[in-house]
């Protein structure tokens, strides 16, 4: 057992082949130290760890809010629902190194004073988690109770309040309005609830073992550590890559100028993220703050490298129509606004001259949905559209002046399940 010294941490323990069972896990990382809540909260605070589910919120602040949030015993939800179609890192982590995630959940429970952990994952990952939990139960590793809840296979399933609703068995996979009452105060069974992404928990498991100074030895001051990225468009199939925060994608992925020329643009953060010109995406420090500075977000670490020869407007239209269908259908501005956004992009893609108000209508429409949903679903779509309009301005202008692209080979992964179908 030793702390990883290089930029590969989570994947260092993930082995090169199959599942890392409990024996191999303990041989690699050792047992979790048994320390007090106070020590754990301080370690997580000092580490500067931020949430890798997409919001990048400081983990220590969130844990303290739950630990001191209410009078009843808190609950921890280890969130691996990963509704983003282009993300695979949570599933990968739970499949390959489930004990690191479960250790992290145990650390979070000890830190906030919870005695119950709910592992929230989609159907295809349930067996991986149950196998790992059985190993732990057999060995008596944990002092808190674990159970597994199956998340619906929907884009919004991993949203914090949607996850709580799924666990509570009411409106599964559908977000609530949390502005006046957050899940940190009243979540699972009405208790203060910590919903934390599984990758974040895996990092916490290593912080508990090797300390905040070790954690900060990689990454930037604001965003220490590493991040798991799901990279699509560089190899035959998507790959999970561990990137030191603050490194450039160009360096981390080994993309040279030649290869970059074949990449039309880069989508960071998935379908609620934002498009960047290839040169920007390859050369900026890979952190949430620099992505935000460019109008994008690294979100849950989705990296989509759009090859040349694909119509980006047709791609954007397909994605926004998918996102419209994945909305919860609860909030008027989102229900109406996303449909108009999708329709407008479809016009721009296939009948560009019939788009009323031209391309300039799109950012205006974005302004009508931003900040007006119970959750951030419309905000994410608006960011996707605004950045698409910027990055693909020339391409959009060509559609208007010369007509739509002839070939529209689809590239971005969009589930083909009909809207409204039960999955």
């Amino acid at each position: 057992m030793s702390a990883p010294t290089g930029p590969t941490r989570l994947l260092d323990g993930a082995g090169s082949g199959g599942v890392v069972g409990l024996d191999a896990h303990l041989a690699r990382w050792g047992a979790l130290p048994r320390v007090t809540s106070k020590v754990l909260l301080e370690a997580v605070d000092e580490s500067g760890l931020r949430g890798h589910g997409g919001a990048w919120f400081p983990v220590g602040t969130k844990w303290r809010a739950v630990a001191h949030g209410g009078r009843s015993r808190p609950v921890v939800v280890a969130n691996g629902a990963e509704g983003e179609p282009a993300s695979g890192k949570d599933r990968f982590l739970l499949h390959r190194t489930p004990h690191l995630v479960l250790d992290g959940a145990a650390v979070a429970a000890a830190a906030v004073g919870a005695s119950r952990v709910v592992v929230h994952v989609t159907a295809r990952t349930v067996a991986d988690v149950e196998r790992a939990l059985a190993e732990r139960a057999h060995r008596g590793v944990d002092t808190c109770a674990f159970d597994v809840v199956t998340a619906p296979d929907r884009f919004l399933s991993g949203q914090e309040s949607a996850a709580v609703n799924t666990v509570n068995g009411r409106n599964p996979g559908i977000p609530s309005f949390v502005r006046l009452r957050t899940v940190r105060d009243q979540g699972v069974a009405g208790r203060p609830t910590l919903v934390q992404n599984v990758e974040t928990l895996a990092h916490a498991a290593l912080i508990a073992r090797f300390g905040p100074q070790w954690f900060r030895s990689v990454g930037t001051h604001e965003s220490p550590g590493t991040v798991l990225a799901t990279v699509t468009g560089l190899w035959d199939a998507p790959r999970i890559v561990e990137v030191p925060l603050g490194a450039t994608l160009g360096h981390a992925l080994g993309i040279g100028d030649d290869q970059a020329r074949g990449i039309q643009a880069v989508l960071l953060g998935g379908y609620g993220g934002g498009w960047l010109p290839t040169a920007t995406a390859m050369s900026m420090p890979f952190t949430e703050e620099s992505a935000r500075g460019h109008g994008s977000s690294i979100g849950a670490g989705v990296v989509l490298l759009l090859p040349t020869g694909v119509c980006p407007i047709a791609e954007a239209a397909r994605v926004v129509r998918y996102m419209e269908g994945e909305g919860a259908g609860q909030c008027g501005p989102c229900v109406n606004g996303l449909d108009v956004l999708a329709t407008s992009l479809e016009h721009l893609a296939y009948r560009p001259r019939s788009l009323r108000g031209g391309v300039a209508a799109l950012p205006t429409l974005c302004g009508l949905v931003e900040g007006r949903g119970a959750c951030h679903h419309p905000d994410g779509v608006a960011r996707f559209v605004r950045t698409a309009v910027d990055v693909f301005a020339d391409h959009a202008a060509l559609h208007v002046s010369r007509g739509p692209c002839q070939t529209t080979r689809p590239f971005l992964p969009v589930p083909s399940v009909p809207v409204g179908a039960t999955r």
Partner: protein
Amino acid sequence: MRRPRYQLVVDPIACDGAGVCAELLPELIGLDPWGFPVVGAGEVPPGLVELARRATVSCPRLALTLVRLES
């Protein structure tokens, strides 16, 4: 003692776009192209707090709340 400060918050899930709030309080609430309220961000001016309170209780879905801001 400082006067309490308030903000208007719409619960977009409860709201079904009846539009009563915009009618009662056009100073602070407009409607989007689909008839859903667009509420001005920030503090409700002290002179409008009573009207804002009336708008909240008139909402048929009780989707509008006057939230007291921490000072």
